């Protein structure tokens, strides 16, 4: 069943595979850039991944304008302004983001300020506010992951007011995303599990939320299939290149899916929990996913039933009667959580994740004001949010 109207946009050129990074200088040149600034964080430096990026520039004749590696885990407007200053100081002409969600979002913020020739990020808060053409922007993700390399949104903290600002615009897409397996092999097991569940949540929500369309569905199911097969392998053996590559691809596809069809209450609850209790995004997604799917079931049963095929495989799909498929999908998600818990101790409930019970009310209040909730198929008011949180608690 097709939606009456939808828009789909994924302009990012994706280079994926062995030694994909070696193409970086060539692509930069194609975009007319000569002095890129690399935006990254200390974690990437410590993992030695910047060396890989730097070595890609060897024998290319290109100069790296600057490497800004002080991006904090929560991107903020102050950092954006600092990077803008460094960029201008060093006469850079392109942005290369290397890292997870935070450096990528920060880089997007930097691009906004530079291209609109402004000095105040706040002016552009909201959706579809940008007009000026953006600077050349390339993303090299090191997690598999948030999928931010193919999304049109960036979330950056307004340091002055200490609130998160959301920016969404088609102009925020990077021109190019490079998926090189060397960049994700150093993720330890529980980070692999967390970011992998993040990708699963993205794809499953993308398949069931209000802006769902055939193109995003295709990306979503392909992502789910890869995650179901390869995530446990990647968690168990970090050096399994095939598994790492599959997860990187899955994360990108999941990102493309949800960027175009939006996400729902799992993200609303996850954002709120992350904001108040500082639970990592991927972990919150993992905990809330089965509960979100269950809550929306009255409106999304048929769709969730279809997801049994990519998630469980043909054997599982055929075994279960049609009326039970949606329920079985959710059971499989829980079993998947259990597998990851057994492999690396990834928490399955809010209690296990260390969220204090008295914070639940505050989280509920924040969650219902999260923008993603408008795309959730079912209505969620304060009481409903509290009920779900209580359930997810233990």
């Amino acid at each position: 069943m097709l939606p009456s109207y939808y828009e789909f946009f994924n302009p990012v050129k994706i280079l994926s595979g062995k030694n994909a990074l070696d193409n970086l200088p060539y692509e930069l040149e194609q975009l007319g850039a000569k002095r890129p600034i690399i935006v990254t964080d200390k974690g990437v430096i410590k993992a030695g991944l910047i060396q890989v990026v730097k070595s890609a520039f060897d024998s290319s004749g290109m100069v790296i304008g600057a490497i800004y590696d002080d991006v904090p885990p929560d991107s903020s407007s102050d950092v954006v302004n600092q990077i803008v200053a460094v960029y201008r100081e060093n006469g850079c002409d392109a942005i290369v983001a290397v890292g997870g969600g935070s450096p990528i979002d920060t880089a997007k913020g930097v691009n906004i300020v530079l291209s609109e020739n402004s000095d105040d990020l706040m002016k552009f808060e909201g959706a579809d506010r940008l007009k000026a053409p953006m600077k050349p922007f390339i993303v090299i993700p090191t997690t598999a992951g948030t999928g931010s390399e193919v999304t049109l949104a960036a979330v950056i903290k307004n340091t002055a007011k200490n609130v998160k600002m959301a920016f969404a615009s088609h102009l925020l897409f990077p021109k190019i995303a490079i998926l090189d397996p060397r960049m994700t092999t150093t993720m330890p097991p529980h980070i692999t599990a967390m970011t992998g569940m993040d990708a699963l949540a993205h794809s499953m929500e993308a398949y069931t939320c209000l802006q769902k369309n055939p193109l995003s569905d295709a990306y979503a199911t392909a992502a789910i299939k890869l995650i179901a097969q390869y995530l446990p392998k990647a968690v168990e053996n970090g050096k399994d290149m095939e598994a790492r590559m599959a997860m990187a691809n899955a994360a990108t596809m999941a990102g493309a899916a949800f960027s175009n069809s939006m996400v729902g209450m799992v993200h609303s609850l996850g954002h709120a929990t992350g904001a108040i209790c500082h639970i990592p995004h991927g972990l919150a997604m993992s905990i809330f996913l089965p509960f979100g799917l269950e809550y929306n079931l009255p409106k999304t049963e048929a769709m969730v039933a279809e997801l049994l095929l990519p998630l469980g495989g043909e054997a599982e799909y055929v075994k279960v009667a049609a009326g039970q498929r949606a329920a079985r999908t959710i059971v499989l998600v829980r079993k998947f959580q259990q597998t990851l818990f057994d492999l690396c101790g990834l928490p399955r409930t809010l209690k296990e994740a260390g969220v204090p019970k008295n914070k639940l009310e505050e989280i509920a209040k924040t969650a219902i004001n999260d923008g993603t909730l408008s795309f959730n198929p079912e209505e969620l008011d304060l009481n409903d949010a509290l009920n779900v949180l209580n359930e997810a608690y233990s």
Partner: protein
Amino acid sequence: MGHAYMGKVLRVDLSSGEIREEEIPDKVYEDYLAGLGLGAYMLYKYMPAGADPLGPDNMLGFVAGLLTGTGSLFTGRWMVVGKSPLTGGWGDANCGGTFSPAIKRCGYDGIFFTGISAKPVYLAIEKGKAELRDAADIWGKDALETEDLLMERAKGAKKPRVVCIGPAGEKLSLIAGICNDRGRMAARSGLGAVMGSKRLKAVVLSGTKKVEPHNREEMKRLSKKCNKWVQFQPPFISGPMTSYLGALLRILPTQMAQDGLLYKIMLRKWGTVSMNQTSVEMGDAPVKNWDGSNKDFGPKKSLPVNPDVFTDCEIVKYHCYSCPLGCGGICAIKDKTHNEFSEGHKPEYESVLALGGLCMNENPDSIFYMNELLNRAGMDTISAGGTLAFAVECYQKAILTKEDTGGLELTWGNTDALIALLKKMIAREGIGDLLADGAKKAADRLGLNAKKYAVHAGGQELAMHDGRNDPGFNLHYSVEPTPGRHTIGSWLYYEMYQLWKKVKNVPKIGLFGMIYHKDKKYVADQTKAAMGAACSKYMSLLNGAGGCMFAAFLGAPRFPLFDWFNAATGWRKTPEEYMEIGRRIQTLRQAFNAKHGIEPKEFKVNSRAYGAPAQKEGANKGRTMDLEKMMRDYWEEFGWDGQTGKPTETTLRSLGIE
């Protein structure tokens, strides 16, 4: 001039085989009465903390009431007490029939078993002599066969009475009960498993001692007066019309404080099945594992189990000892599909709804059949129904697959699958082994969020009274030392008990409180806590007396419990002093729980049962309540710690409990 109690109990150590009598001082009876209070006294005193419910340290007691045999009415019930393997704390079960006076005729107020027998045995008391006899030839037989065999063996003895366990108790199913009178059962708290763990198959009692009340004339006078009310039986509506009664109660936004005389009329006419259709329509009966409503099980579906169906096949009406009302009955089973039984005990309301509406089962024949199967197996019908409904929902939510159930398709209302599953549970076969210990244990073992679908309080499946309709039920399900019980209190029961007419300091429902808006029921305030506390205290007294809850429904002015107490024992206590005894008995049971490591907060019912989230349609649409506040208020009303629910040191000392 006697004092109604026998003054001693029998102690049986099954490990060593030692049997001895123990004198109980008068003061114990004055503080705790007999029955439940005496049981609580013994268990608290003699059971070490941390005792394994299925181990030798657990003490299983059979107790008769203080008023049993004194000439009062409605006082023929017996109780079993012990540590419950289902909830891990205080356990008791209550049953009618004819066993209670038999205990006193042997000269005892109670018989207490400890230890574990090496071989299956049964206790027989005949002509004043008690002995343990070999039960190898009856071990494995169902409860009715066992009773028939033992009664046959006891021919010639004076008024022999038998209690026994069935295969469920022998197999240590945690929802097994203890049977008597060929189909009555002390079913809750899983005490049948305790009896099975002790390898005690049965107790056969035959005695001739007389119970001596203090003032026999006064007892007779009070009973005659009470009986007049019981005999008052005007004509009443027909069975199928009861659904309209329920619909009317649902639609009106206000309701009237109930006078129990109406309920007595219905009970006398039909028995507890009088409420079958009414309860579904008004939202009192849970449907579809507590997730559905009268919209899912409307009048057409509940018609096959309307009250007249049961009285039409009733062969004989059945009165428990000293009861003039007679709500029980033996029915002819005309079931053509199964053709196994020709007659059986009339199913009670709880059994009909647990095996019917709760599982969306519309087939009345299957209900008679399953009821008889469970009676013979010695398994609690309420818990069995609750566990079946849990299994069906897990199957619907794909937590259980066809593989797990051995090919059974557990869809709502699939009668054949339900019967097959029930048989597996009784035999502990395949998935039946997982389910035979109740919904909570099954959910714990399944994981995968199955606990959301296990509707229980502290492990005990809830009875067929929806707390979303009368929040008092949810309160008592959650705060009683024996959680999950519907036989103690609720706002409806409080209205019917009419305690304010006899007892001072309890909330009064005056003329202007007679008609009130339904929303008032859901407000959690101090009055409600006081009502709940009064119900608990009153029922503790009634259980100490061996009394029947349906008698309490007549209302305190018509059911002269306090006067009977005084006339039977020679005491001269005021109703308020008796309520204080009730408070003591209740506190002692809660202290038992505290001693054995129970956290009262964890007895709170499953969130579905109290409307988190609230239902979207049906009689209880949108209803929810602040259950935690209600629990705190109740505990404080008793003088217990409001945060933890455990009795405080001061309270224990003031009541004389160490």
